[in-house]
C-alpha cells in the first residue's frame, strides 16, 4: 500500500500550503461555500444560494475553481455538480452533465454540444 500512503501525504502537504476555503459571489456578497479540502480535484459540489438558487462549484486538476448554475438546462434537474470534469484538446475545461452528457464550458457557461444553450457562470474564489 505504499502508493496510497504517498498520495495521502502529498495531498496533506498541498492542503497545508493551499487556500483555506472557497467563496462565491452572490447578490453582491461573497458567500462561503466550503472548506478547500472538501473539494476533490475533477469533481464538484452543490451550493444552495441565499435566494434559493443552486450553484455547482468545481475544482479542476490544476486546482482552479469554477462555478456555474447547478440546473441542467436539458432536463431541468439540479445535477450539474455531479458531473465529471474534462478538458478539450485546446484546454477548455468543461463539466459533462451526468444525465444526458452534454458538456458545458466552465469559463463561459457555453454548451459545447449545442451553441444555442448557455448556463450562468458565477464568480468564485479560493481564500
Amino acid at each position, binding site marked *: 500500500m505504499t502508493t496510497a500512503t504517498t498520495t495521502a501525504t502529498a495531498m496533506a502537504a498541498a492542503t497545508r500550503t493551499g487556500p483555506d476555503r472557497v467563496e462565491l459571489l452572490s447578490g453582491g456578497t461573497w458567500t*462561503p461555500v466550503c472548506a478547500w479540502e472538501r473539494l476533490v*480535484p475533477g*469533481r464538484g459540489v452543490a451550493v*444552495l444560494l441565499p435566494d434559493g438558487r443552486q450553484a455547482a462549484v468545481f475544482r479542476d*486538476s*490544476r486546482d482552479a475553481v469554477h462555478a456555474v448554475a447547478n440546473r441542467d438546462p436539458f432536463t431541468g434537474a439540479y445535477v450539474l455538480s*455531479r458531473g465529471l470534469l474534462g*478538458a*478539450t484538446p485546446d484546454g477548455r475545461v468543461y463539466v459533462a452533465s451526468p444525465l444526458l452528457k452534454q458538456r458545458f464550458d466552465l469559463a463561459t457557461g457555453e454548451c459545447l454540444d449545442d451553441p444555442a444553450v448557455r448556463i450562468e457562470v458565477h464568480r468564485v474564489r479560493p481564500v
Partner: protein
Amino acid sequence: MTTTRPTLILVGYGMVGHRFLEALAESGAAAGHRVVVLAEEPRPAYDRVALTSYFSGRTAEDLLLAEPGFTDRHGYELHLSSPVASVDRAAKTVTTGAGRTLRYDTLVLATGSYPFVPPVPGRDAEGCFVYRTIEDLEAIEAYAAGRRVGAVVGGGLLGLEAAGALKGLGLRTHVVEFAPRLMPVQVDDGGGEALRRTIEGMGVTVHTGVGTTAVEVSADGRAAAMAFTDGSRLETGLVVFSAGIRPRDQLARDCGLTVGERGGIAVDELCRTSDPDVYAIGECALAADGRVYGLVAPGYEMARTVARQLAGQSAQPFTGADLSTKLKLLGVDVASFGDAFGTTPGALDVVYADSRAGVYKKLVVTPEGALLGGILVGDAEAYAMLRPLAGTGSPLPVPAESLVLPAGLGAALPLGGAALPDEAVVCNCHGVTKGEVRAAVTGHACTTVPEVKACTKAGTGCGSCLKLLGTVVTDELAASGVEVDRGLCPCFGQSRAELYELVRVKRIPTHARLLAEHGRLGGRGAAGGEGCEVCKPAVASIIASLAPQLPVSGHILDGEQGALQDTNDHFLANLQRNGSYSVVPRIPGGEITPEKLIVIGEVARDFGLYTKITGGQRIDLFGARVDQLPEIWHRLVAAGFESGHAYGKSLRTVKSCVGSTWCRYGVQDSVAMAIRLELRYRGLRSPHKLKSAVSGCARECAEARGKDFGVIATSNGWNLYVGGNGGATPRHADLLAQDLDDDQLIRLTDRFLMFYIRTADRLERTSAWLERIEGGLDHVRAVVFEDSLGIAADLEAMMAHHVTDYQDEWAATLADPGRLARFVSFVNAPGVPDPSIRFTPERDQVKPDLAVLATEAGLLASLVRTPVLEGSR
C-alpha cells in the same frame, strides 16, 4: 418489352442456386432475362454449411443467405414449396408438383443432393432421421426430448457434426463408422486415431469397422436398437443416418439427360449438360473431371461460370476444385488440404503426433521442400496460412518440421499474409486471392475487414480464412500509410485494452500518472492533464479490476478513484431524471426470504420510495435523495443486504429458474449455481455491465442464452454459453463448452470473464467483443479452454484475487465518515434536502414531479412559502 426477354428457370434454391442468382446480378445477366426460381424447400436459400449452429441458437432467419428484398430488387420470381416434378426438353417446359407448367429458354439445375440411407431393415421407423435441412433438425430436436441415447450412422464430416448436435441435445451419443477410422475421406489413420481419442474423451462412443445391419423396431413402430455386423447391438431410440450423399439427378434422368454411372448430371467444363439449353451446377453435377463435389466452394465456382456465360462474358471453365476443408467438429479442429494423402510421386511426410493431447499434424512436401498438402487434427491454427501455399511450388520459408511442432517448440511462425504470393487463394469458399484483397484496399478504399468482406465476399463462407484476411488487410493498410485512430478519447491514443496492459504491466495506480506518462500531446498538452468524462471512468474501471495487483484500495471511492467515477458509481446508486436516485439491493439468483422482502417493503414505505420489480429478478426502489442514501443503506445493510451494483459497469444479476429442486423437468440445481456465480463475480469491474443466468434444463426459463455468460443444465452437468445480449441488438449466446461439472464451469467462467476484461473496448458488451476480436469464438475458446496463450493460470489468479478482496461497497462506505461526507444535497447546508426533488402521486405510489423542474423561476416561486436556508447555518 419484358415479354421478349428469354426466360431462365432455376430449379432448386439452395446454397449454389443462391450464389448463381447473385452472380447473375453481378454479371448483368439478370436484367436480360426473366428469371424464375422454383424451390422445393419452404424457405429461401440458407447456410447449410452452418446448419448445426441452429442447435446453438441461430434461428432459421439468421441462417438465410439473402439480405431482405434480394429477389425483389433483382426482379427474380421466387416460388417456394414448388418442386419441379418433370422436365419436357422437347417442349422446353417444366412442370411443378402442383401441376403448373412453365416454359423456359434456359434451364439451370441446382438440385443438390440427398442423404444416402443404407437399405437396412427398420430404417423407416419413427426415430430415424437424416441431417440435411432445417426441417430435419427441427424433427431431431423435437424427438430427442425425453430420449437418452442417440446414434449416428457414419463417422464422416457430417456424421460427426450430427453427433455433436445429439450430444448438445443431452443424449448419450454413439457414432458407428464402417471404415476402420473416422473421417476416412479427409484424414489418414494417424489423424483418425487422434480424432477418435479426443472425441471419446468428450464422452461420445465411437465404433469403427462395424456396419449396421438393422434398426430394431418396437411394437409401437419406433426405433429401439441397432444391430451390427459384428453381432453386437446397441439400444437407442434415435438414429441419424449420415452415410454419405447422392446427387439429386432424378429429374435429369427422367428427361433423358446424360447422368454418370454412379450418379450426377454429367456436365462439361462450362457446366453444360448433354442438352445445350440445360446447365447443372453444385452437388447435383458430375463435373468434367469425373467428380461430384460435396463442398460448397466448387459449386460457387460453377455458379459463376454459368452466370458469366449467360451474360455473354468469357467464362472461366470449371476443371476441378480444391477439396481443402477446415472444420470444427465437436470442438476439435480438423483440416485437410492439397495432396493430403501424399499421392504425388516422390511426396514426403513430416508428421507430429501427440496422442495425449489429441494432436496430429502431417505436412506433405516435395523432396525440395515445397508444400503439397497436409492434415491437421486437434490444432489447425496454421491451416489458413498453409493452405494457400500448398501446390504453389515455392519452397516453405522455414523447415516443414518447425511448422508442425507445437507453438513454443518450433520456430516462430514467420508466416503471415506477407509470406504469400499475390495469386495465393486467401478465401477458398469464394476463390478470392491475396491480390484481390489487396486491390480492395488500394483500389476500393476499403479500410476495415467488414468492408473488404462486403466488397470481395472473402470470409463470408465458412469463415476459416478470417484471421488471414485480417492480417492481409492490416498489412496492406499499413503499407498504404492509412492510420486508423483506435484511441479511447481525445486524451489517449491507446485503446482500452492497451491501457489495461499498461496499467497492469507498469502497475500505474492513478489516472493522473497514466495520463502524464502515456497521454496524447506528450502527456499533458493544453488540457493540463484534466482528462475527460470518457477516459476517467474507463481508467477507474481498469484500476478497480486490477486493484489488488497495483496495489490500490479496493474501494472505488478511495483516493483519486473517487474523482474518476461516473456519477452513479460516485454515489453508489442510479441517477434518475429528476436528480433523485434508485436503490437496488443484491438478491443473488433472485432468491429471497420473506423477512428480507418485508425489510425492503418497510424501507420503501418509510422513505416513500416508488417500488418496482426489475427485469433482472430484483427490486428497485426509486426516488431517494442523495442525503437519504446512507440512511436507506444503513437499514438494508443491517438486514443483510449488500450493494447490487446496478450503478456499476460490473456484474448485475445472475437470474435463475427454479430448477431441479422444485421443477418437474429440472436436471440440476440452477438456483444454487446462480447464487454461487453471483456471489463469486459480484463487484467485478468490467468494460461494460455483465449479466448472467442459469437454467435448470434445456427449456431455458432463465433466458441464459440472452446473457453475457449463460449456463444451461444438462443431465451431465452444465453447458456454458457466452456473448449473449438483450437490449437494442439482441444476440443469442454461443456455446463455449458443454457438460462441465461445477468446478470446471467456474474455472472456465473465471478465465472467460478475465480475458474479456483484459481485452475488450470501453463499453463493449461480450457480444460485441466476441464479434469483433480476431478469431472470434474459436480464439476465445482456444485461450480459455485450451490455454493457447498460456495465460489461463494468470486469469484464474486474478479472479481469485477479486474473490478474496471483495467487500460490500455500501457497508464499507457506511463505516467511513470520510466516504459518507459526500452524501449531502448541499455542501454549505448539509441538513437541507434538495427542494427540486418532489413527487406527485400515481397508482398509489409516487413519480417525479417534472413540472417543478420546468423553469428555475417556477421552482423559486414554489419555495417562497418555505424559505429553505433558514436555520441551516
